[in-house]
């Protein structure tokens, strides 16, 4: 039997967290940048929910950011999006704008 935390207002904190907004995104989204040769960079987006169709996301993003992008399936980290160039600000704005993730779920790494 597991005990659950119930606050004064009789709302089960765990239920609340789980049902929040019916948003399938539960984990943190990590947006990273990697340097390639020369001035070229690569942006990776890790941790998006499985319920999202990443291919569709990419399709839109490619056009809006004017860059190429792919989905990479990684054994440990699951499906990860890659974009060419530094798209960190773009993808962050996109995720927030389309409400795929909440602001506190997005972590932008790098400089």
């Amino acid at each position: 039997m597991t005990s659950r935390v119930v606050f004064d207002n009789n709302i089960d904190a765990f239920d609340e967290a789980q049902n929040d907004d019916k948003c399938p995104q539960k984990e943190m989204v990590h947006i990273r940048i990697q340097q390639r040769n020369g001035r070229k960079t690569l942006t990776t987006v890790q941790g998006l929910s499985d319920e999202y169709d990443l291919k569709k996301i990419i399709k839109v993003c490619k056009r809006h950011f004017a860059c190429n992008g792919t989905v990479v399936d990684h054994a440990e980290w699951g499906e990860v999006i890659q974009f060419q160039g530094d798209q960190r600000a773009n993808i962050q704005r996109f995720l927030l704008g389309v409400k795929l993730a909440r602001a506190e779920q997005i972590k932008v790494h790098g400089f």
Partner: protein
Amino acid sequence: MSMLWHYCAAYSIKQRSTIRYNGIFRYWGEGESLEMSDAELPDIDLTKKKKKKKTAAPLDVEDTTDQRKILDDAANEDLFGGEDGSNVDVTKFDETLKKKKKSKKVTLDLGEGEEDLVGDLDELSLDKKKKKKNKAALDIGASLSADGLEKTAEPGQKSERPWLDRDMGRDGFLYEELLDRVYAIINKNNPSSGESSQKLVVPPPKLARIGTKKTAFSNFDATAKALNRKSDHLLLYIFAELGTTGNQDASGGLILKGKFVNKAMEKVLKAYCKEYVQCKTCKSYQTSLEKRDRLFFVKCDICQSERTVVAITKGFQAVVGKRARIKAAAAAAAPK
């Protein structure tokens, strides 16, 4: 703080933030209902104000500046007593206080006044937090962004009384200036209560390009030492954040793959400090990191509070560079 009130009331303050004004005032007023509307202002010692305005009006600037300084000095002595802060008559600056305490026959000697001041200061610090956030921030060298530096500049560095050489008739006293001055004086008189202990001075990262593809972070070890962290931990964080690899050299430097500039490294170091150095409870940077049961704890040396921090993970790393070579290496490493 009746002194502040007097200052504010006696001289016209053109720009002031009402919210903070009230907040500060409430704290200093020790919970007594001292709030006054502007309509009540004229009751309080207007003579000084009028005198001021008159002296500010004439055209020859030299003379007025001198006069103003004399007047200001006089007012200053009224407020803060002598240079050493003695002879402060706290009661005489506050009408309400005077009225209320008249029956009690006030004998506020200096010792008591100081006690009050310190007590109030503690309360005040809560209110101050918002404003001082910039100040409490760590200094990664002097090369921080210019606007950040502007904000963190100590008020003592500016002229202590900037209004002396200004057209008082037109501009008057600015609330911000007066506030800065009050804080400067408080900090001067109470060195221990300042937020100096929350400051962490880290030498600015020295980055230099090696060839076209590598960057040397030459004072890497010194930085780790200044943060009181093992260089391995900081190294891991830098690699994870910058999405790169590298190695340490013999002279305490770090060679990173890729091109990086000082600003980028400062940002990474700041993020590191926020996540792995700063105490979330008291905001101090004097902490130590220890590992227990496969978990990392940051323990504060000041308030002894502890918190867990996540281990550094690099996360997904995209394949960049020579795929063929990586494939070949993988094939060679695991043939059977």
